[in-house]
C-alpha cells in the first residue's frame, strides 16, 4: 500500500464527501422551493437560527411573536403536506401522517375513502305525512356510511317543522329554501329538485346525486352500491300500493351490470322528453355532469341546462346507455328501493 495509492484513496474519499454535501445542498435547495410548506419551512429555519447559534446566518425576517398552539399543529401538517407534494404516495408512511392514518384505520376498519353521496329530497307542505316521513328517511340516512350530504328543499314558511326535524338528525345536510308558489305539485317537486341541483352546481360538489322521495324505503346496501357509479346508474324500483294487489317493478334490465333494456310504465310518451317515463328515484348520476359537462364529452349548453337541469339529467340518463351502470352490479335483479303509494289521506 504505497503512499500514492493512499492519497488517491483520500482524494476519492473527499470527492465522495463533496458529492454528498452537494446532494444535501440541492436537497435543501429544493425543500425550500416546495410550494405548500414554504412558509413553515422558512419559519423553521429561523427557529433554528434562534436556538442553534452555530449555524446562525442573520435572520432575514422578523418572527411572528406569538404562535398559537393550533398554528403549531398546522405547521406539522404543513410539513407533511410538503412531503406529499414532493413525493406523492410513497411518503405516506413517514412521520405523523402514519399516526393519523392509523387513527383513521382504527375507527374505520380500513382507510378507503368513500365517494360522497348527495341525497336530494324535495318536501311539500301539502304533504301531511311530510314530518313523519322525513324522520323515517332521516333514520335511514343516518345509518349510511359517511360521507353523505342531504339536500332538503322546502318552500319558505314560518313553520320551523322541517328545520327542527333536520337539526335533530345529526346528518350533514343543506336546507334549501325557496319563495315561489306553485299550484301543481309535480312542477313544484321538479322546481325543488332543480334548486337542489343548482346548489350542487354552484358549489361544484362532487359526488353521486340521487333523488330520494319521502315515500321511499331503502335497503342500506343501496347506498354502498350507488357509490360505485362512474357516470350514471340505474336500478329497479318496486312500487307498492296500499290495498292493491299490484306491485310494479320498474327499471333497467341488465346483463351483468350492463343495461340492455328498460321496463317502463308508460311508453307512449317516450318521444316527449318532458314526461320521461323513468322514475325519478330510479337513477343516480355523478354530479360533475352538472358543473363540468366537458368532462363528459358534451358541449356545455349552459342556457339549456340552467333552465331545467333535471330534464337535462333525465335525458342524459336515457341517452347515455354506454355510461349507464345497472345496480346492484350482479344483473340489477335485486330490489333495494321501495316506493310506497298511499292514497289520499
Amino acid at each position, binding site marked *: 500500500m504505497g503512499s500514492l495509492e493512499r492519497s488517491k484513496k483520500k482524494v476519492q474519499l473527499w470527492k465522495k464527501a463533496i458529492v454528498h454535501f452537494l446532494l444535501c445542498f440541492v436537497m*435543501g435547495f429544493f425543500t*425550500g422551493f416546495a410550494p405548500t410548506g414554504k412558509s413553515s419551512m422558512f419559519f423553521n*429555519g429561523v427557529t433554528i437560527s434562534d436556538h442553534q447559534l452555530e449555524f446562525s446566518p442573520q435572520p432575514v425576517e422578523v418572527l411572528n411573536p406569538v404562535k398559537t398552539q393550533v398554528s403549531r399543529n398546522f405547521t406539522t401538517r404543513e410539513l407533511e403536506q410538503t412531503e406529499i407534494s414532493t413525493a406523492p404516495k410513497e411518503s405516506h408512511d413517514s412521520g405523523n401522517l402514519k399516526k393519523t392514518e392509523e387513527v383513521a384505520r382504527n375507527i374505520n376498519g380500513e382507510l378507503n*375513502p368513500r365517494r360522497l353521496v348527495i341525497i336530494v329530497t324535495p318536501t311539500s307542505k301539502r304533504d301531511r305525512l311530510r314530518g313523519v316521513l322525513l324522520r323515517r328517511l332521516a333514520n335511514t340516512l343516518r345509518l349510511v356510511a359517511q360521507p353523505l350530504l342531504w339536500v332538503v328543499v322546502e318552500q319558505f314558511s314560518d313553520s320551523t317543522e322541517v328545520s327542527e326535524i333536520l337539526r335533530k338528525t345529526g346528518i350533514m345536510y343543506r336546507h334549501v329554501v325557496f319563495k315561489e308558489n306553485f299550484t301543481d305539485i309535480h312542477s313544484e317537486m321538479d322546481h325543488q329538485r332543480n334548486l337542489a341541483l343548482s346548489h350542487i352546481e354552484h358549489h361544484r360538489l362532487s359526488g353521486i346525486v340521487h333523488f330520494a322521495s319521502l315515500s321511499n324505503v331503502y335497503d342500506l346496501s343501496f347506498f354502498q352500491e350507488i357509490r360505485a357509479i362512474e357516470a350514471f346508474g340505474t336500478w329497479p324500483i318496486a312500487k307498492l300500493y*296500499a290495498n292493491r294487489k299490484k306491485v310494479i317493478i320498474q327499471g333497467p334490465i341488465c346483463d351483468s351490470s350492463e343495461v340492455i333494456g*328498460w321496463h317502463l310504465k308508460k311508453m307512449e310518451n317516450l318521444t316527449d322528453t318532458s314526461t320521461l317515463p323513468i322514475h325519478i328515484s330510479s337513477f343516480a348520476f355523478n354530479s360533475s355532469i352538472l358543473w363540468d359537462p366537458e368532462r363528459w364529452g358534451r358541449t356545455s349548453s349552459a342556457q339549456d341546462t340552467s333552465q331545467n337541469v333535471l330534464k337535462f339529467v333525465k335525458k342524459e340518463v336515457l341517452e347515455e*346507455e354506454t355510461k349507464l351502470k345497472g345496480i346492484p352490479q350482479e344483473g340489477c335483479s335485486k330490489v333495494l328501493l321501495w316506493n*310506497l303509494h298511499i*292514497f289520499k*289521506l
Partner: protein
Amino acid sequence: MKQLTALQQQGRRSNSFRGASLPLDTSVDGSVKSPATIFWLLLHGFCCLISLVLGFRFSRLVFFLFFSTSSPSTTTNLYSALQTTFPSSTITSPPAVNGTAVAVGGGSRVVVGRHGILIRPWPHPDPAEVVKAHQIIKRVQREQRVQYGVKSPRTVIAITPTYVRTFQTLHLTGVMHSLMNVPYDVVWILVEAGGTTNETAALISKSGLKTIHIGFNGKMPILWEDRLKVESQMRFQALRVVRQKKLDGIVVFADESNMHSMELFDEIQNVEWIGAVSVGILSHSGGSEGVESSAVSREDNDKNENSQMPVQGPACNSSNQLVGLHTFNMLPFMERSAKYVGDRAAVLPRKLEWAGFVLNSRLVWKDVEDEPRWVKDLDEVGREGGDIESPLSLLEDPSVLEPLGSCGRKIMLWWLRVEARADSKFPARWIIDPPLDVTIPVKHTPWPDAPPELPTSGGKVISIPENTEKRVPKRSTRKRSSRSKRKRVPKVLDERVSTRNSGDN
C-alpha cells in the same frame, strides 16, 4: 458563514488527523466500529446537514431575487404565483394578481392595500381529511350525548309482530332503521306468525342488532279484527320470552308500520314501571279509485290541510298529573272502516294501541322482590284467553301509568297501517327472477345480430301480477336473446344461494 467555514476547516483538520492515524480504507469500509469511525460518520452527516441548510437558505435567497421585486423584507406570496397557473373559473373573482401582490408575513407589520387571493392548486377535498372530519363530528356528537344525554341508560327491548307479505320488507326496514339508530343497547324480539322464515331472518340479520326471532303458531288472519287479537297474543308470547330470559330493560312495542322519532328512545328511559306516550294516528282513507298518489302528492288542498291528526295517549291536567287517556274515537269512521286486509277503506287503530305503552321489563318477570303490587301475573292475564286489548290489562289500577313526552304534548311515535291486498304477490326476497322482459330496448344493444322478434315463449315469466296490464302490447321489440338468458340463469341462482346462506346465519 464565517463560523461555517471554520467548522469545515475544523472538519478538514480532524480528517487529516484521522487519515494519518488510521488506515483510510477501514474508515471507508465502515466495518471497524471504532469510535473514531463513528465520529467521522457523524461529522460527515453533520456537514451534509450544513449543506442542506445552506441549500435551503440559498433557495430563499433565490426566491427573493426572483419573485419579490418590491420589498425585500416581506415574504412573497407563492400562491399568487401559483394563481396565474390556476386561475379561478368563477366570474365573481377577478384574480389578476401580479408581482406587486404582497401578503402579510408572519411579522406584525400592518400591510395595507391589495393582497393576493390565495388559491391552492389542489382543488378537491382530500378523502382522508373528509374521513377525519366525519370522525371528529362523530366524536363531538358522542360527547354531546355523554354530556347532555341519558345517564346510565337501560336496554331497549323492542317487540315486533311480523309475517311474510308484500309490505313486510318495507315496514320492517323502517322499524329496523329506527332501532339501529338507538344509541343504547337494543334487544329486538320478533314474533313471526306462521313460524320463522328465512326471509325474515335474512332481513333482520342486516340490522346487526341482538335479535330474538321466534315463531308463532297460527297464520295471520285476513280480518283486521282477528288480526289485532292475534298480534296481541304474539306480543304476549314475546313478553313470555322476556320473562323466561329475564331480559332487563324497557319494553317498547315497535309495530311494523310505526314510525319513530329518535327522541322517543331517550324519553322512555325515564320510565319507572309503565309509561304511556302519545301516538299520532295516520289513518288513510284507503283511497277511492283514481285519486292515486304517492305520499308527496296532491290532496284536496284546503279542506284537509288543517284537520287535526288524531292522537292517542296520556291526558294531563294543568299540574301535569295524569287524568286519563286520549283514545281513538272510532265513531265517525265506523261505517267506512276496513274490515279485511286490502279493503279500500280506512284501517282503524284500537282504542289504545300497544305501541303507546312502554314497560319496565321487570314488570313481567316472575318473583321480583320490588315488583309493585298492582301488576297482574303475565300468565294469568294470558290465560283468560280473550283479547288482550292493551298493556293496561296487566294492571290492576291504570292510574299508575306514567305520562311521557311532556304529558302528551310531544308526539314521538306515529301509527299507520298500510297493506297490499292479501293476495298480492312479490318476488321472493325481492330478487327479480326470472328477469323482467325488455319493454324498451336500449338504443345500441350489445348484440346487433340478435333475432329481432322472438315469439313470446311459453307462459309469462313475470311473477308480478297486475303488472302486465300496464305494459303496452307491442312490448318486447327486442326480446332477450336466448343466449343472454342462458347466461343469466346460473348467475341469479348463485346469488340466491348466497343470500340464503347469509340469511341462515
